[in-house]
């Protein structure tokens, strides 16, 4: 017989040690992770279908950090899966953009005076046509209100006659205005760029100290225009030094002061640039730029970064990434310098240029037109060479005074109060820039300088265009590219699908003089001044080697046109379409299709009688003085409708045409469910070939030939430039959203402007179906960053965050319009789409997800306490009642509850250890485990107590502790056996039940053993100690005097 009672104090000691261990396991760090049920949040278990080879939990975590989930916990699950857990609530896009790219200004499109809508037209409308309907944006125009009814206006590249028109229009709208032009020797108008340092208010304050009446205007982020009439020479001279004293130097700044940072870091281990960038941002140094050099090397640069901050940053990076070597730039050898070009310089172009010079320098943009160029160990001479070379190409600008010959800067003072919006709106109707006859492309290539390029224009057309321009803007300086033997002017056709960037980079790297412009649909213009024969051939061959053979159309022939002029007007497809709509509505003519072809505007329709055709031609002639029409030449072209059902769209067909080798066919237009197409200069055999090929591809088509008297197929050439473009607003955003479906958005449009937009559209394009943009699910936002970014660099982090179908449109130097599908509103969707974007698809079958909101979690905590307390009280009361026939039944209840408390505590301790060593969370399943153990162990305790009860009742004379000891020994066999059988069953499930319930069963196993222990060694002994008064003596010694002696 084992004497359990005699050694009870040793058992108490053991219990105390175990409980201390429990407390230690729960309290000592690391903190015990509470499960979702108690802390709220989101958890996911997932497995990637095809994860990257070296994917680690850390990578997954980095990705979630990029998503803005700073508290995300990621654990490997051991079988190639990951467990993700986060409590973060939803975060906003803007804070994220600021974190990633530095300060941003933004405007959404949700206000009452904003427009954001989808438009669908019944008639076919192309994006270009819709854009044309609104005219081109006014470039470089700055308007600022400087007083009641007083505005400061400046624009570069505006010729005097245009300026006059502008003022006239303003006066027409707002009454007579007093205008003061700048340009006299006593006037000042200058642009200043201080990098990131100055705000408008600060600058204005500083300027006011120098002279009164000066106007400061922010044109783009940190590019300022300072202007004032009749400014004294002293003030003019004092101004810039004063400003520089206040804000630092505004141009070509050296980096070799200790306040600036230029540091190269590298590591042997792979490091992601985004991680470095994030780390830099987390350290609060978002003004430090990270440039990736490849081979795990990065350059960190920043202006005005104190030594202390540089050190902190470096330490943080060394902590975050292993094996970091760092190396500051050697300023004495002059490795680092900053460049600022006055004109817009594309970073790619600049890099290409530097690469071409075979210099080891690196370039990153550091502000508007500011570039940071750095390279290790570049000799003084080489440095000079590089700078000179770059200056040759881009022109190294100093503080340039405003160019008054080609620009305008004036103050308008209206007698009546006029708001800024009024003036901006009025600009909408002024034709600042017009488009030529639709066949010639006009490009802005510099201040006040444009290039006009046209293919197959014919000498007369060219002459009339030139005459029109002269008539409109006065004699202009013209420099024909095609008259000099040393010039290159050629159009290349690669078929659709080519982007301009591809070609421009390629061409520019070959010859700095050569330029490439897209004419749309894979047709490019390549041109350059003063180029010898060999260079020209080399450029063309290189381009073709890169992109495949192209159909070359030399522009040297007299019937083509390629020249640089200043200013232009034009007529658009839309003018013709409007005319067609008028004719349909007013004269009852059948509807015809108008589309752009290289030979002119193409007009075609089915079932148009000869009279109707004539009526149309008469109407077109009324539109313009000289219209040349020529019937479609069917012997050399094709015009017919093909109906493939509804499965083929325009893009598909065009792509297919290219694939089949019919590159020459550009005139393909979708008209309703069928497809209308037509093309010039195709032999009859080729036409046959085409039809067969298309039918092979898309199945049999229903064909309607236009080669019939009642069909109309005609091309029209308009030779008289007619002013037609109707501008609506410079801030209007137009994007294609589907076939004949567009997205349209604008900020701050007063109601009248909105109405005007839609009436214009409806009268131009016919019936509109409109549906509002759903901001809850979609994004529409204009953001302005402090530095120019590439669309791609904005896209990637957004896609990482689960934004989809992103359309990013550059609206200014560092201003972008963002549109796309927002990530799913819930975190699950966000996390999944973000991880899938980074690491490939997730196996849906592996996915487990859990979400608990804060309210539920709070309730869980409360309910857990209630459950544990209610359980204890319930057991106490029941045992009290069941043992009512024994003396002091209450003590049995208390002892039972103490026993189960002990078991619960040990189980909790076991959790604590598992949490520390196995990463297990304490969740509701664990509460189940504790309660199960309580239920089970109280079962054991009751069996023992039942025997004590029986023995006490049967032998009332016996010692209490002897009775207890007897009872314990009598039930020992049963207790051991029960614990064993239960443990065996639990062990079986533990070993074979799989990972999902492994932890749970481990807890149960520990609980079963703890329960057996407490029943035998603890609960009964408490009764003995209580009976002997030990509890009172030990725990409540102050009660000794009042207490009665133990019985």
């Amino acid at each position, binding site marked *: 017989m084992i004497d359990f009672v005699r050694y009870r104090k040793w058992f108490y000691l053991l219990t105390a040690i175990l409980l201390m261990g429990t407390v230690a396991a729960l309290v000592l760090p690391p903190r015990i992770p509470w499960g979702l049920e108690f802390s709220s949040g989101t958890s996911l278990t997932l497995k990637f279908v095809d994860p990257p080879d070296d994917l680690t939990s850390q990578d997954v975590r980095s990705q979630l950090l990029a998503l803005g989930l700073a508290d995300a916990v990621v654990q490997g699950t051991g079988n190639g899966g990951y467990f993700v857990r986060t409590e973060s609530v939803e975060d906003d896009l803007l804070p994220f953009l600021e974190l990633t790219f530095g300060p941003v200004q933004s405007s959404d499109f949700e206000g009452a005076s904003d427009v954001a809508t989808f438009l669908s037209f019944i008639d076919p409308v192309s994006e270009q046509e819709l854009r044309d309907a609104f005219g081109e944006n006014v470039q470089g125009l700055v308007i600022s209100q400087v007083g009641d009814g007083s505005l400061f206006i400046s624009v570069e590249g505006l010729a005097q006659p245009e300026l006059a028109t502008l003022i006239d229009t303003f006066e027409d709208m707002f009454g007579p205005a007093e205008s003061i032009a700048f340009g006299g020797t006593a006037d000042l108008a200058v642009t200043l760029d201080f990098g990131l340092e100055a705000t408008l208010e600060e600058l204005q304050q500083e300027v006011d100290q120098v002279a009164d009446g000066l106007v400061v205007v922010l044109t783009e982020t940190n590019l300022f225009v300072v202007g004032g009439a009749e400014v004294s020479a002293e003030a003019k001279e004092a101004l810039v030094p004063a400003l520089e004293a206040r804000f630092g130097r505004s141009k070509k700044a050296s980096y070799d002061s200790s306040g600036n940072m230029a540091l190269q870091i590298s590591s042997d281990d792979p490091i992601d640039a985004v991680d470095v960038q994030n780390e830099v941002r987390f350290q609060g140094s978002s003004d430090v730029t990270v440039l990736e050099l490849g081979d795990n090397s990065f350059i960190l640069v920043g202006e005005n970064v104190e030594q202390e901050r540089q050190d902190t940053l470096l330490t943080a990076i060394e902590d975050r990434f292993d094996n970091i070597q760092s190396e500051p730039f050697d300023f004495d050898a002059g490795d680092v310098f900053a460049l600022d070009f006055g004109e817009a310089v594309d970073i790619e172009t600049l890099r290409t240029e530097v690469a071409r010079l075979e210099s080891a320098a690196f370039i990153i943009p550091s502000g508007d037109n500011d570039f940071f160029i750095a390279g290790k160990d570049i000799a003084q001479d080489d440095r000079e060479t590089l700078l000179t070379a770059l200056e040759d190409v881009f022109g190294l600008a100093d503080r340039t005074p405003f160019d008054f010959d080609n620009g305008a800067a004036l103050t308008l003072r209206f007698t009546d109060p006029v708001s800024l919006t009024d003036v901006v709106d009025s600009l909408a109707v002024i034709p600042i820039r017009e488009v030529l006859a639709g066949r010639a492309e006009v490009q802005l290539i510099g201040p006040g300088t444009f290039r006009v390029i046209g293919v197959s224009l014919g000498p007369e057309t060219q002459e009339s265009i030139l005459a029109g321009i002269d008539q409109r803007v006065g004699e202009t300086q013209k420099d024909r590219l095609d008259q000099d033997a040393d010039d290159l002017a050629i159009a290349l056709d690669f078929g659709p699908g080519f982007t301009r960037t591809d070609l421009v980079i390629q061409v520019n790297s070959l010859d700095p003089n050569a330029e490439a412009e897209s004419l749309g649909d894979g047709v490019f213009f390549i041109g350059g001044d003063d180029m010898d024969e060999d260079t020209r051939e080399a450029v063309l061959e290189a381009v073709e080697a890169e992109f495949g053979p192209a159909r070359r159309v030399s522009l040297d022939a007299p019937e083509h046109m390629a020249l640089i002029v200043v200013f232009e007007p034009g007529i658009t497809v839309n003018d013709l379409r409007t005319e067609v709509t008028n004719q349909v509505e007013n004269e009852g003519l059948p509807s015809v299709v108008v589309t752009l072809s290289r030979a002119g505007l193409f007009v075609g329709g089915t079932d148009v009688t000869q009279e109707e055709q004539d009526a149309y031609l008469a109407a077109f002639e009324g539109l313009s003085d000289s219209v040349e029409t020529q019937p479609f030449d069917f012997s050399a072209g094709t015009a017919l409708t093909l109906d493939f059902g509804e499965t083929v769209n325009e893009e598909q067909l065009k792509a297919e045409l290219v694939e089949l080798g019919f590159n020459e066919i550009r005139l393909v237009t979708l008209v309703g469910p069928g497809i209308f197409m037509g093309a010039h200069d195709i032999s009859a055999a080729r036409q046959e070939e085409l039809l067969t090929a298309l039918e092979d591809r898309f199945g049999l088509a229903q064909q309607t030939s236009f080669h019939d008297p009642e069909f109309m197929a005609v091309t029209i050439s308009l030779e008289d430039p007619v002013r037609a473009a109707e501008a609506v607003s410079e801030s209007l955003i137009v994007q294609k959203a589907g076939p004949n479906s567009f997205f349209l958005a604008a900020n701050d449009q007063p109601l009248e402007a909105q109405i005007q937009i839609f009436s214009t559209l409806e009268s131009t394009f016919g019936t509109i179906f409109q549906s509002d943009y759903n901001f809850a699910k979609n994004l529409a936002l204009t953001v302005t960053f402090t530095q120019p970014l590439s669309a791609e660099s904005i896209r990637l982090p957004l896609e990482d965050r689960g934004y989809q179908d992103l359309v990013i449109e550059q609206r200014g130097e560092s201003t972008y319009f963002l549109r796309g599908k927002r990530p799913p509103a819930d975190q699950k969707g966000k996390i999944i789409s973000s991880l899938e974007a980074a690491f490939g698809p997730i196996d849906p079958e592996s996915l487990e997800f859990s979400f608990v909101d804060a309210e539920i979690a709070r309730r869980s905590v409360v309910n857990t306490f209630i459950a544990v307390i209610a359980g204890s009280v319930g057991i106490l009361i029941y*045992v009290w009642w069941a043992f009512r026939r024994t003396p002091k039944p209450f003590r049995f209840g208390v002892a039972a509850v103490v026993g189960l408390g002990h078991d619960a505590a040990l189980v909790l301790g076991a959790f604590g250890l598992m949490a520390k060593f196995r990463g297990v969370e304490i969740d509701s399943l664990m509460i189940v485990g504790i309660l199960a153990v309580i239920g089970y162990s109280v079962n054991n305790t009751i069996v023992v107590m039942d025997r004590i009860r*029986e023995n006490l009742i049967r032998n009332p004379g016996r010692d209490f502790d002897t009775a207890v000891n007897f009872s314990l020994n009598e039930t020992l066999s049963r207790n051991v056996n029960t614990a064993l059988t239960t443990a065996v069953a639990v062990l079986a499930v533990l070993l074979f039940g799989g990972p999902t319930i492994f932890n749970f069963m481990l807890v149960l196993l520990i609980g079963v053993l703890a329960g057996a222990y407490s029943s035998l060694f603890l609960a009964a002994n408490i009764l003995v100690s209580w009976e002997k008064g030990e509890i009172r003596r030990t725990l409540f010694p102050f009660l000794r005097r009042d207490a009665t002696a133990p019985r």
Partner: protein
Amino acid sequence: MGFRKYRLQVAVIIILVGLAISSLSLQTFSIGSWDRGSDDSPLGLRLGLDLQGGTHLVYRADDPQVTDEQMEGVANIIERRINSFGVSEPLIQRKGGNEIVVQLPGISDIEEAKELIGGTALLDFRECIDPNATNAGVCPGWQPVTAQGSGGVEKQLTGAFLRPTSALVADPTTGLPTVRFEFNGEGARMFEQITRRLQGRPLGIFLDDQMVSAPVVQAVISQTGQITGISQRDGRLLAIQLNAGALPVPISVVREQDVSATLGRDSLDRSYVAAAIGLGLVMLFMVLYYRVPGLVSVLSLGVYTAIVLAVFKLIPVTLTLSGIAAFVISVGMAVDANVIIFERMREELRSGRTLGAAIETGFDRAWAAIRDSNVTTLITMFILWWFGDQLGEPRIIGFAVTLIIAILTSMFTAIFVTRTLLRLLVNSPLAGRVHLFVPLRGGGSTRTAVGL
């Protein structure tokens, strides 16, 4: 003779076991309108989401002041939406004053389902505040459109006046996804008045305060209308939602748990094997240790297992992973009752009683211990049940319910089945060999037989 004496008890046991086994061996069965079982689960038991995969969702009304009728309406509409969505055996249950539990077993597109359930889908029609607007684009603002409904009362036209016949179709001319809806009698009369009044003016169709389309009224229409400009998927969901009706109050997800089907199936297979192994080991132990009574307890454990599983199937109780764990523990407890009895019997035998007397005394004396220990466990399990219900946590409820059923069944089998079987043995030739009932050596207290 002994058999005849206890034939009633034996008959009850045989009938019970027979019923249990037959109900388990039939995958599905129905008596009248009473259907039980399922074709795709072992023994036709109903499986919880963690074993067959699926989604457990708890929705809460956004407005804390929500009334009881509104919540009832929400539950009904969710049920209708889910039924049209095609989920087999969904569970929609109200919980507390403002929550609804939705369980969707074996569902593949959870996001779509959530969108379908959670969307308020309040459709209404509006006219432009500017009577001269001829197009939605030129409309400065919208106001609800009203017309005379039944009884000459001026009413606002909303989705409440639709027949449950909305459908997603492809527009014959544009081929775009279009949701076509049909007004009921009153709605049609109202729509006719409205379209007559709004000739040449836009009619805004708003879903949850968001304009989905705004066609210009071309002709007087009464019966049908359509919504364009939505995606195929949204259109499908919208049609279902329109047919089921709008939710009276907006709701949102406060608890979500998704388990993939393969993971569930894997857990199920594993836990079956584990439970079987556990049961086998326990039975082996009992036979080796307690000999003939051990054999009896194995039989009784078999009866116990059959009855518990049958009860699960008949009630039906949803079997969860934690339920299987509870079952394993309950095996230990069921054995425990037998162990208590056998230990008692052994004491009685050692104190010199006959086998028959030992059995009867053993049972009588063991009863109090068995009762008290099981009642305390039942108390904790009922509390656990309440806890799980509060938490909306099916795993906890599964555990508690399983253990409650198992404890009640184990008390019955220990007291009734084991006892009857042992009584039968008393009159068998085995009864003479006491050593088969009392092992000569064993663990624990065998050396001291203390009779009291």
